[in-house]
């Protein structure tokens, strides 16, 4: 409604209007009497699928990356969440991120693309939705699905119902089938650069959709009576699976500082504040003992100095008994026995650089940032660790390395590990060869990545790789049963899971393997069988389960192991 003289009755308005008329203008922007100016000039009221897709993809990656450390901590690789001391709202940030950012924008794309008959965008969004929600089920068990994102719906619903994980899985299979159908349909629309993950390549998206389906079948195989046949079918789908680096579902971090696009591990470990988590000593040391060719790519030592136990300050910075390997006799014994250490000055300095913590060490944090072992070039795109050279402090000079790391979300080598697991579980194929291929592929994957990021990286020799693989295979062959062999394979998957987190958390809950991880020193609760659904959601949403599931006693629907320390 524009204000006109009819609205201000009488001579008061008339007179004032007459005087003020010289201050009004025909142009709306400058007309003091025009009240129709409440359209936000800063933000659009329409979104286009081309603009929504890249943001949805980035936010989905951000959501997954936000939970990566938690799972790696729970599985004994870094000192994050490694005592299971979760608060009622510990994961509200991730939960909220999924539902208000990527999940919602994917849903917006589905709505808009359905209305416009835009099949390629629809297919991509459906595949992403299925992947996102299957991850949500794996993490939180029961979540809103069908009624989610209805805050702006014609019939507004701000309190969506929660659905059983199994139902959501079933709906996701359907979504994936629809996605593949839409992606294979002929369409004049091309996605192109709006897709920052696959650059609009529909055949890769089909491979992705097929791989997500396989991942879900593997994950839920213990509660699926027809898993064996379904998995075998899913291993050879029409359109194929992810089958190498060009089709891997990964996110490449950048080198850009502002806005920050570098790998979060890099920014926390390589910049001046140096507040990266501790790496679990046991994880590093096992890889040293097995002469794992990936060690120099995974980790970067900083210091060769041995903390002086007669100096109060140094003593205060020393990790708990046993974890400071250079002063730990048993570590030396094992290292010498494995032929990876000798009592030389060089090796002493080398071992002094193994500075981390035991799983679940909750003691206070001393001034030890100059000592802590940092993540290396893979996947953080920090620095390669050349054992033959003394390392330098990462804070000085600043900005060593570049931060253009990678987040492997769904890769070819993961599929090989799943294939090996299912071949062992259901007695088909050649599990030994599949497992060997998985390990070899991952070692090459890591080495190639490192070489592409830090020019000082050195590729492991074929002999080093073969020695390592043969040791694994000997171990595999020595295992008496398929289950025991699976345990060995999943230990390798655990090593390969550095920088991913999701797959090893799922694998342990699905199989109980690898069974030989060191238990945490401190436990605040039992092993987390799922993540706690945020209390805030419970408080705000009357449709949420009440009480909310207890995260360390109530497993997700596919978990029959119910792992416990």
């Amino acid at each position: 409604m524009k204000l006109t003289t009819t609205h201000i009755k009488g001579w008061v308005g008339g007179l004032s209007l007459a005087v003020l008329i010289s201050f009004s203008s025909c142009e709306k922007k400058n007309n003091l009497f025009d009240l129709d100016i409440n359209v936000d000039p800063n933000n659009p009221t329409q979104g286009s699928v081309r603009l929504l897709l890249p943001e949805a993809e980035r936010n989905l990656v951000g959501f997954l990356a936000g939970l990566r450390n938690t799972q790696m901590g729970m599985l004994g690789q870094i000192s994050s969440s490694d005592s299971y001391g979760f608060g009622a709202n510990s994961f509200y940030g991730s939960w909220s991120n999924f539902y208000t950012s990527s999940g919602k924008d994917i849903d917006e794309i589905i709505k808009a693309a359905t209305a416009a008959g835009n099949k390629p965008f629809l297919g991509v969004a459906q595949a992403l939705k299925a992947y996102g929600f299957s991850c949500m089920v794996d993490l939180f068990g029961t979540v809103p699905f069908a009624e989610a994102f209805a805050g702006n719906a014609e019939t507004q619903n701000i309190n969506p119902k929660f659905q059983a994980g199994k139902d959501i899985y079933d709906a996701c299979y359907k979504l994936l089938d629809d996605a593949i159908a839409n992606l294979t349909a002929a369409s004049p629309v091309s996605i192109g650069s709006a897709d920052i993950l696959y650059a609009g390549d529909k055949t890769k998206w089909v491979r992705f959709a097929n791989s997500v389906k396989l991942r879900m079948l593997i994950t839920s195989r213990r509660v699926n009576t027809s898993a064996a046949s379904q998995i075998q079918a899913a291993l050879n789908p029409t359109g194929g699976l992810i089958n190498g680096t060009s089709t891997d579902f990964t996110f490449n971090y950048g080198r850009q500082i502002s806005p920050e696009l570098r790998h979060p591990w890099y920014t926390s470990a390589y910049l001046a504040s140096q507040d990266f988590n501790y790496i679990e000593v046991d994880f590093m040391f096992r890889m040293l003992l097995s002469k794992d060719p990936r060690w120099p790519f995974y980790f970067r030592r900083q210091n060769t100095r041995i903390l002086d136990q007669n100096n109060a300050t140094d003593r205060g910075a020393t990790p708990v008994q046993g974890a400071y390997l250079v002063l730990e006799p048993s570590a030396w014994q094992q290292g010498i026995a494995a032929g990876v250490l000798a009592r030389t000055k060089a090796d002493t300095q080398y071992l002094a650089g193994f500075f981390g913590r035991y799983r679940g060490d909750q003691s206070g944090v001393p001034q030890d940032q100059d000592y802590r072992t940092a993540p290396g070039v893979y996947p953080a795109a920090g620095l390669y660790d050349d054992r033959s050279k003394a390392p330098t402090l990462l804070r000085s000079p600043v900005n060593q390395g570049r931060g253009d790391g990678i987040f492997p979300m769904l890769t070819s080598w993961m599929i090989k590990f799943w294939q090996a697991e299912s071949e062992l579980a259901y007695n088909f194929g050649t599990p030994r060869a599949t497992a060997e291929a998985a390990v070899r592929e991952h070692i090459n994957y890591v080495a190639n990545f490192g070489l592409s990021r830090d020019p000082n990286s050195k590729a492991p020799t074929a002999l080093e790789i073969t020695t390592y693989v043969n040791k694994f295979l000997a171990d595999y062959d020595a295992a008496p049963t398929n289950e025991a062999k699976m345990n060995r394979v999943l230990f390798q998957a655990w090593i390969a899971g550095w920088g991913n987190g999701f797959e090893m958390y799922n694998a342990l809950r699905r199989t109980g393997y690898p069974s030989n991880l060191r238990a945490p020193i401190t436990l605040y609760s039992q092993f987390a069988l799922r993540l706690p659904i945020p209390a805030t959601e419970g408080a705000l949403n009357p449709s949420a389960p009440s009480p909310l599931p207890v995260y360390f006693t109530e497993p997700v629907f596919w978990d029959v192991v119910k792992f416990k320390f």
Partner: protein
Amino acid sequence: MKKITMVLAGLLLGTLSVLAQSVVKGKVTDPDGAPLSGVTVKVVGSSAGTSTDKDGAFSISVPNLNASLEVSFVGYESQTLRAGSNLSVIALKQSANALQEVVVTSMGIRREKKQLVYAVSEVKAEQLQQRAEPDVLRALAGKVPGVDITSGGGAPGQSTKVNLRGNTSFSAVNQPLIVVDGIPFDNSVNNSVGFDQATTFSNRLYDVDPNNIESMTVLKGISASALYGQRAANGAILITTKSGAKTRKGMEVTYSVSYNAEQIASLPEYQNAYGQGSNQNYNGAFIGNWGAPFADQANKVNTASGGLLKYPIITQVPTQLKIRFPGLFPDLPDQIDYKAYDILNAFFQTGNMLENSLNINAGDGKNNINVTASHMGNTGILPNSNTGRTSLSVGGNSQLANGLRVSGNINYVNTTQQNPKSGASLFNDYGGGTGGSIFDRLYYFPRSFPLGQMPFEDPNTGGNIFYRATDNPLWTAKYNLFSSNVNRVFGNFNVAYSLTDFLDASFRGGFNTYTDFQKQITRPGGISGGGIGNVWESTTRNSEKNFQFLLTTKSIDLMKNLDLNVIAGAEANERSYYNQYAYGVGFIVPDIYKLTNTSQQAIYSDYDRKQRILGAFGRVNLSYNNYLFLELSGRNDWASTLPVDNRSYFYPSAGLSFIFTDALKIGGNILSYGKLRFNAAQTKRDVPAYQLQTTYNVISPSYLTPAGSTVYSASLSDALKNSGLRPEGVEEFEVGSELNFFNGRVKLDLTFYQKTSKDNFVTKRIPVTSGFSTLAINAGSIQNIGYEAGVDVTLLKTKGGLTWNVFAAFNRIRSKVIRTDDQDADILTGNGAFVSNVQRVGQPFGMLFGLASARDEEGNRLIWPGMGGNGGKHIYQDVDDIFGDPNLDFKLGVTNTIAYKNFNFSALLDWWQGGDMYSITAASLLLRGQLINSADREGVFVIPGVYGDPDTKKALLDDKGKKIKNTTSISAFDYYFSDGFGAYGPEDTNLYDRTTFRLREVNLGYTIPKKFLTKTPFGSINVSLSGRNLWFLAPNMLEGLNLDPEVLSDVSTSNIQGIDLGAAPSTKRYGVNVKFTF
């Protein structure tokens, strides 16, 4: 105005029936000779009367020249003259009687105070000037009943909060409308970044120089500010500047100069017994002081108890520096004595403030001009902290021959501000922030760390040097500077014309616009800024246009003893705001802190906002017999920010005042004057702009792929808007009384009010699974019940010229949240700290919310039974809950003024009673074993409380059914550090009652007797000494903490309250002022 009897009005009522026998003419002026228009001239004993015209002239028919003429005018003493006497200049004296006091009210209309139906307080310029205070609001603190002022800390220019009659909104700014010379004056805080980065943003009322103020009026209730409408829902403060005031005849030049020294108001009392480390073991890399004792302490303990305490002789800090920065400091001694050093006195400096102000005022009675130029410079107690304010204003008014009355003024102000990063320390200590505030560390160094003796920058690169991964405060203070530069221009013009003898029309238009350019530098080589440094620049433009058209009648005699006044008007207002915020990282060339010298830049904000309000209003005043007054008003607004259907809204007010001493003729020497006031008023107001339609956010800066191509993207906002929003409402009911006893020796002004806001705009939290995190709705409701009292007692008034006056201003508010949202869920507000404010139905506004210790029903803390482990330590509550009430019980300011001959002394003492404060400063000092109260730590400590069951949170009972007092002792380290009363303990262990007694202001002035000035060019010289915040006592705070409880928990526009986050401390000032007139 009311007393004026108009000839025309008389004609209308048919009362002018006397035939003229002779006509006399005359002219009425004020004491300075300026003509007074509208003065009533009556023939005594008849109904004949007239009033003076714009030149002060009148002519009146009198029966004979011996008739008596009564000349009377509001605010002046009446005179009775013989008609035949010389009437050419009748100079009226201004009334000494306060009852005739004239005050500026809504829309700048001057009215006799006795007629008002609501509480209004006027503050004279002298009460604000030369008070060692460059901030108008701080200068006002404690002087006006019902005005609640809280300053935000002692960094130069740091913002100050003002509130009248409580909070009406959970999220919007709860500060009054500021009107300068009739045009709204934006008082925002343009805080480009959060409280964790820098807290030193100003509120923009800081642009007003107290020296440039002629008078100030506080309209507390919405009845008083009704004509201003919605924007005065939290009251209004009207400021008349010197150049906006009507000037007097003649010429006067006033020059004043002030110089003040500025110092930190208080420092914590540190312990000097123990140094760096933990568990009584030395550790040279630690911050905390739980290490080994210093030599004196060890010897003392060993002598007293035969102990065997060991202590190191030297501190390893230099060694730590050498390990961290190998080869950089060859000359640094390896060893320095292990003892307590004086750290803070070496850091804080003495600041100063210099003010110069020149005012020239010239006029011939019809045409006047006023020019003011002033400058203020203030350097603070932190290195590199300062503000400056330069203002220039020109104003004038003129009566044109054609009857137009024209006035206008224009003002230019440049306000500059610079401060090193001095934001809230909490965020870096516990929040994992990288703000890099000086106060992250400054108060919490190891006692054995001699800050001033250690290097703080790399001699080669200028990079930060510290023994831990933290920025050295000296380095931050030198390089990491925030600055703001405000250029503000505001002005107005006013044209008035008498349409008829009883009807005046006026038109006022004005604008007020400023640009605030802010910049913050984080130098490379530090911890904050990731080592590579960054710079941000923010430009804010804020503009306001306001046009008003007013028709006012003079008093119309409706019938005998019943007078009528009518005002009608219309107003148009437009506000626009613009902000651009750009950020650059990684300096290419050292020491050039420009965006163009950074390797990567991004624009984070480029935001425009515009909103308009149109209003039409009217007011009717009826006066019966000059002792009963009725006022009715109404206003309709049309607001651009509301949906079309809800855009137009009307709100009324009504009030009555009754001077019962006049009406009942009971005025005597004891009760000389008594008045009762009643009013009820409603205001409605619009909602923030752009809340009707959910939008998409275009993501900026764009995403750059690793391959280097730019990807543009957008996301649907997670704030769900609402196209059905309605205006908010505020309703108020007020009762008051003014009572004068003993002929004005004792004056009371009492007010009670109840103010309730309804349909508040709130962004309600909704389940994020809906895809959105908030939903805009109208739901909130807050009630405030308040008591205001002004007590003015002249204790002494001797013939020798000694007077002693005491004025007390009292303010008490009780708030209650009536509704939060449509489900009455808690609303949490906070700035990211782990203690928040919560709005909960039935509770006072903004209660403190956090994880507190579990308590039994009597309030005893519950303690884990048993030894070892958790034994002897707090049992915590399961979830965050309310643990403190930050709202003060009352504020009382008492000003003593003693005048004797040419001397004048005043002292303002104020008293804040009650109110809880959660103190991070206390928590951090306790945590690190700094305070004097932790000097004794060889013994064991017992937390006061009773044993409890950790599962049921109930007290354990002994076999007689009695509670068991906790006797489990824990070490001093555990008591303060791990789980006791320090920062790692439950939130309620650092909750303190902030009752404070303060000597806020002292002033001693001397006016040089005129006889000494006869041979000088000076008309008068006044010299005064002034002091501010010279002393305070907060008896219920932690011993030795010495923290000034007058702090804000954020910038002044925030509603977060009762949390000390450890930012810039308060200061005291004292100095000398000289004022000359020529």
